C-alpha cells in the first residue's frame, strides 16, 4: 500500500544518508533512544540542533568579517559547532568544521572563509535532507522507525484482533446459515481483517 511504499522510500533515503556520509553512527544512537515515551525523539533533537546552531553560524560569520579575523573566537565557535554537529551524527558537517579549525590554527583567514562556506553548504544540505526525511517519516505513519521490534509488538495485537473477528464472523455464519445478512456481515468481517493485515 501507499504507506508501504513510503516506508520503503524512507528506508532507502536513510540508507543513502548513511552511505553518502551525511550521517554517522550517532544518528543510529538517537534512533535507538526513541521510544514510546519520546516517539519523535530524533526529529526533536535534529530540530533543536538546527535551531541552536543558527546563532553559532551567525557568530562565525560576524567574526569572519572582521579583519583580521579573531582566530581564537573562531576556533571556539567552531569547536562548539563541531560538538553540536556530533550530537546528531552530522558527519560531513563535523569534518568540515575540523578542517576549519586547522586553518584557524594556522591563522589562514582565506582558508577559514573558504572552509566555512563548505561548512555552511554541508549544513544546509543536511538540513534539507533531514527535513524531507522526517516529513516522509511522518507520512509513512507511526511505527515507522528504526526500532524494528516495535512493529512486531504491534503485529501481535492486530493478529489477535483479526483472529477474533474471524472466529466471531464464522460463528455467526454457522449459527445463521440461512440468513443472508450474516453471510454478508461475515464477508465484511473478512474484508476488514484483510485490510488490517495489509496495513500491518
Amino acid at each position: 500500500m501507499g504507506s508501504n511504499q513510503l516506508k520503503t522510500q524512507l528506508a532507502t533515503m536513510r540508507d543513502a544518508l548513511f552511505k553518502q556520509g551525511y550521517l554517522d553512527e550517532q544518528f543510529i544512537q538517537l534512533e535507538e533512544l526513541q521510544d514510546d515515551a519520546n516517539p519523535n525523539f530524533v526529529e526533536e533533537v535534529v530540530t533543536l540542533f538546527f535551531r541552536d546552531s543558527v546563532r553559532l553560524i551567525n557568530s562565525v560569520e560576524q567574526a569572519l568579517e572582521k579583519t583580521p579575523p579573531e582566530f581564537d573566537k573562531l576556533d571556539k565557535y567552531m569547536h562548539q559547532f563541531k560538538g553540536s554537529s556530533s550530537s546528531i551524527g552530522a558527519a560531513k558537517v563535523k569534518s568540515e568544521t575540523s578542517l576549519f579549525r586547522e586553518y584557524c590554527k594556522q591563522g589562514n583567514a582565506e582558508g577559514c572563509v573558504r572552509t566555512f562556506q563548505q561548512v555552511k553548504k554541508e549544513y544546509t544540505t543536511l538540513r534539507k535532507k533531514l527535513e524531507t526525511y522526517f516529513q516522509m517519516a511522518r507520512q509513512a505513519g507511526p511505527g515507522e522507525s528504526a526500532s524494528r521490534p516495535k512493529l512486531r509488538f504491534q503485529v501481535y495485537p492486530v493478529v489477535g484482533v483479526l483472529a477474533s473477528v474471524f472466529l466471531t464472523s464464522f460463528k455467526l455464519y454457522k449459527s445463521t446459515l440461512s440468513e443472508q445478512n450474516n453471510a454478508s456481515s461475515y464477508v465484511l468481517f473478512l474484508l476488514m481483517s484483510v485490510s488490517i493485515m495489509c496495513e500491518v
Partner: protein
Amino acid sequence: MMENGFQSTRAEAFPAGLRVLVVDDDVTWLKVLEKMLKKCAYEVTTCCLAIDALNILRERKDGFDIVISDVNMPDMDGFKLLELVGLEMDLPVIMMSVDGETSRVMKGVQHGACDYLLKPVRMKELKNIWQHVFRKKIHEVKDIESYEVIDDIHLMRNGFERFEDSHLLSGGNLSLAKKRKDMESKEHENLDLCDLSSVKKARVVWTVDLHQKFVNAVNQIGIDKVGPKKILDLMNIPWLTRENVASHLQKYRLYLSRLEKESEPNAAFGCFNQTDFSPKDPSTGFGLQSSITAHQSREACSSFGFSSGETIVQAIDTEIKEGDLKDIVPLLPSPEARNALVGKLHEIQKKSNGSQIDFSSSVGGSVGLDVRCDSFDSTGLRKHQWSREFSDMQFKRQTEPENKSYRHASPAFVSPHPCIETNSSINAGAPIAKMEKENSSGSGIKPLCSRYPTSNVAYLPAMASTESPLPLQPEAGIGNILLSGRACAMNESSRTKGNSFGHSRGICWGYDQKDLFEANTAVLQSSYENLPLSSLQDYDCVENTVLNNIEFLEYDDLELFAALPVQHCDRLKFNGDYNLSEPVEYPAMDQGLFIV
C-alpha cells in the same frame, strides 16, 4: 523512580536511580544525554551553565552522586568546575569533550576527573558511570570509617543485588551476574572495613622518621602549595598512599594551628581582626567557609568556591591554623611567627582568591589539605568563621578581595611556634566574632545536634542572640579558633550532612572546658550563630564532636604549651583512631560540654 530524598531506597536499587547532574552548554547534547541517562534508569538533572550547576549542587548537598560536565563552557572552564566540585562536594566528575587530544585528557585527569568521555558519547559508556560512584565510596571507607559511607556501600551492595536480580528476571544483562560476584567479594571487603569494632584498616604508623620526611616535604613544597600528592612524591615512600598522606597532612595542619594558637594566649586579637573583618565580613567569612570542603584527600585546592559554605572543615588543624594565623598575624607577639604568617599570607594571597582550605573532614576521611589560600585571607576568616561558614550566606560571599586584608591566614604549616601562636588563635576568634556578626546565620543556631541536645541548647540561645562581634578574649579567640576549626570541621561535615551545629557545639564545649570558657560565651555564641543552619546529622555530630572532643581532651589534659608536642604526636595517632570509636568520643564530649 526513587523517592526523592529517600536515600536508602535509592541506594537499594543501585545503580539504578543514580543521581546524575549533567552540565553542558550545548542544548542538543543536553537533550541527548538526558535521554541516554534516563534510559540507564538514572535520575538526571541538566543545566547549561557551570554556575547553575554549582548552585544546584550546593543547594542540594548530597543530592547527587555524580557529575558529568563538558570541558568547554562559556561561563567557566570545565576543569575549574571539576576542581570545585571535587573540592566542595567531593563528587566524582566525568569530563566530556569532542576534543580528544591527549593533553586535554591529561589535564582532565590531573584536575581530578574520574573519567574523560569523547563526544559523541555512547550509551554503553554512560551505563557504566556508576562504577565511579561506587569506587569513591569504597575508598571513602578505606580512608575513614564513616558510618554514612558504610551504610551507603551496604545499601549499594544490596541495591545492586536487587537490581541485578530484577534485571536478570527481566532478561537483562548476564554481565550483572558477574558484577554481582564482584560485589560479593567487595562485600566481604567492605564488611571488614565496616566493622568498626574491629577496625582492620591497616593504619599507617607515623614514626618520627616518617613524620620528619613528611615535614621536610611539606616545607619544601611550601605550606600553601602543599598537597598530598606532592608530598607523597617528595617523600618517595612506596608503600605510602595518598590517602595516608592526606589524612596525616590534615592532622599536621591542625597541629600547627594549635601551636599557633597556643603561642599567643592573650593577644588582643579581637580588636585587630575585628576591625578588619567588619568591613569585609561577608566576604571574608565566606572565604573561609567556602574553603572548607570536606573533600577527602583533595589535592587541588584551587579556587574554592566560597560561595558555598560547604567547605568541610574537617581538617581543622592546619586550616584553622592558617586562618588563625592570618588574623593573628598582626597580633602575633613573636615577630617570627608573624613573619611566617605574613609570608604565608602573601603566598596564600597570591593564590587565586577563592582558594579554599580543604579540610579533610573527619568524616570524610583525609581531606585535601591543599590549602589554596588565594583568598586565603578569607580562609583565615574562614577559620574563624568556622561556625560562620556554615551559614550559607557566608559561603556565598566570596571573600577574595576582602580577605586579603586580614586574612593572611598564614599557612598552618609554619613550623609550630611553641606557644606564641596561641594568641593568634585568639585573633582567629576575633575574626570569627566578626564573622559571626556578619553571618546572619546566627539564627541558624538551630538544629542542635541530637547528641548533644543539652549542651547545645544552652549555648544556642546565647549564640543566637549574639550577632555583634563579641569581644573575643584571647581565650575565646582560641576557643573560637579551635571551635571554629572544629566547628568548621564539624560544620563541614555536618554541612555536608547537615549537622553543622552539632559540630560546632562540640567544639565549643571542648574549648570552653579548657580555658576559654570565661569569656567565650559570647564568642561561642557567635560561633554558634555562624554555625550553619543545616540540621545536624547524628552521626556527623558525633564524629565531629568526637573529633573535637578528642582534640579538646588532649588539650585539656595537657598544658597548652608544654603538652603540645606530645599532644601532637598523640593526637596524630589519636586522630587516626577517633573516627572509629564513636562511643568513646562521646563521653569525652560530655565532659567538654560540662564547662558551661
